[in-house]
């Protein structure tokens, strides 16, 4: 049987039209949520590969561009975290309206926290976390530090504000450009508030944490606090951060195996 063709489509999201690609179209379905900024671009291939794997296994995957990102309507500078959560919930509703059984929300990095929140809000039974961000505040610090380093690397000493100075600029209402993507003070505030542990504790369903490379030392403790949390570690490159396109086939296999478990159950 030929591999089904992925369907690009637009959803009428809460704040504007949302671009999404549907892989497959029958059976148990999942929603895939991207990471923020440049990580989103660098993980597109893996999302597409996951979609094809799921379609080939008789399921479906909806890969969503939240408002203000990718090919969806809106500017990145207009988006808030709550908008993205609402977009994800809307996308899950869309799947259900198509009589697809939305069984899981999958998210990468910041998208993993979003996946937990969306799964809870839409009463989806499972969340699958690809290399989740654990603390939003620390993630923001890292993003600002990398921006500072990039400015230094380009010999732009004048632009290489310290992380403290960058935070002050955000606090003063300035939009910062980070790796080609704008970050507003409002989004920075939203990101700083994110906490994986709390999001997981608020979710009653099953959580699968997929770590690429060694799982962080904090993983077992967080998982222990959650109602039904499990850890899988796979080998592979940090594809969301490498400059050249890389893939982690083991992550695809592990995810497909987890989700086809659902089919059998």
């Amino acid at each position, binding site marked *: 049987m030929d591999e089904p063709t992925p369907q690009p489509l637009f959803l009428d999201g809460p704040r504007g039209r949302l671009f999404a690609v549907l892989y497959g179209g029958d059976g148990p379905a999942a929603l895939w949520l991207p990471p923020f900024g440049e990580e989103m671009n660098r993980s597109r291939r893996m999302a597409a590969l996951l979609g094809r794997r799921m379609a080939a296994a008789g399921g479906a995957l909806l890969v969503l561009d939240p408002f203000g990102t990718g090919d969806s309507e809106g500017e990145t500078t207009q988006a808030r975290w709550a908008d993205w959560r609402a977009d994800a919930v809307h996308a899950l509703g869309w799947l259900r309206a198509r009589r697809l059984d939305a069984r899981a929300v999958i998210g990468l990095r910041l998208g993993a926290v979003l996946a937990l929140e969306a799964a809870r809000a839409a009463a989806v039974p499972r969340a699958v976390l690809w290399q989740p961000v654990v603390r939003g505040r620390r993630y923001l610090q*890292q993003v600002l530090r*990398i921006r500072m380093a990039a400015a230094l*690397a380009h010999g732009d000493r004048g632009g290489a504000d310290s992380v*403290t100075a960058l935070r002050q600029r955000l606090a003063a209402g300035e939009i910062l450009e980070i790796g080609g993507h704008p970050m507003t003070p409002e989004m920075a505030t939203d990101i700083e508030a994110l906490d994986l542990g709390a999001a997981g504790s608020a979710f009653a369903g099953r959580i699968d944490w997929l770590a690429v490379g060694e799982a962080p030392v904090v993983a077992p403790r967080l998982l222990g606090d959650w109602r039904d949390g499990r850890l899988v570690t796979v080998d592979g490159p940090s594809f969301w951060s490498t400059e050249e396109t890389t893939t982690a086939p083991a992550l695809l296999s592990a995810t497909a195996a987890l989700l086809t478990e659902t089919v059998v159950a």
Partner: protein
Amino acid sequence: MSSTLTRADAAADPVFQRLRALLTDVLQLGERGAHLTPETELLGALPEFDSMAVASVVAGIEDSFDLIVEDDDLDAETFRSVGTLWRFVADRLAEA
């Protein structure tokens, strides 16, 4: 932790192993990662070790070991070698 960091110490130490795996991934060293020892020099010696690499390695350390590294904690000496970086991580873990 002893003041002299030996290869034997490294081989037995889970922090070193975790740090080595992290450096291998972040710097995309591939097979070369297996050959990192405490003596391996980083800043100024390894071509991959530029300011972006420093930022990425620090992020990797924070996430893997669940630490927060303030910019004031860092100086060039920290990144002189794998051994100095290992000591930095171990010291931070002891404080945490």
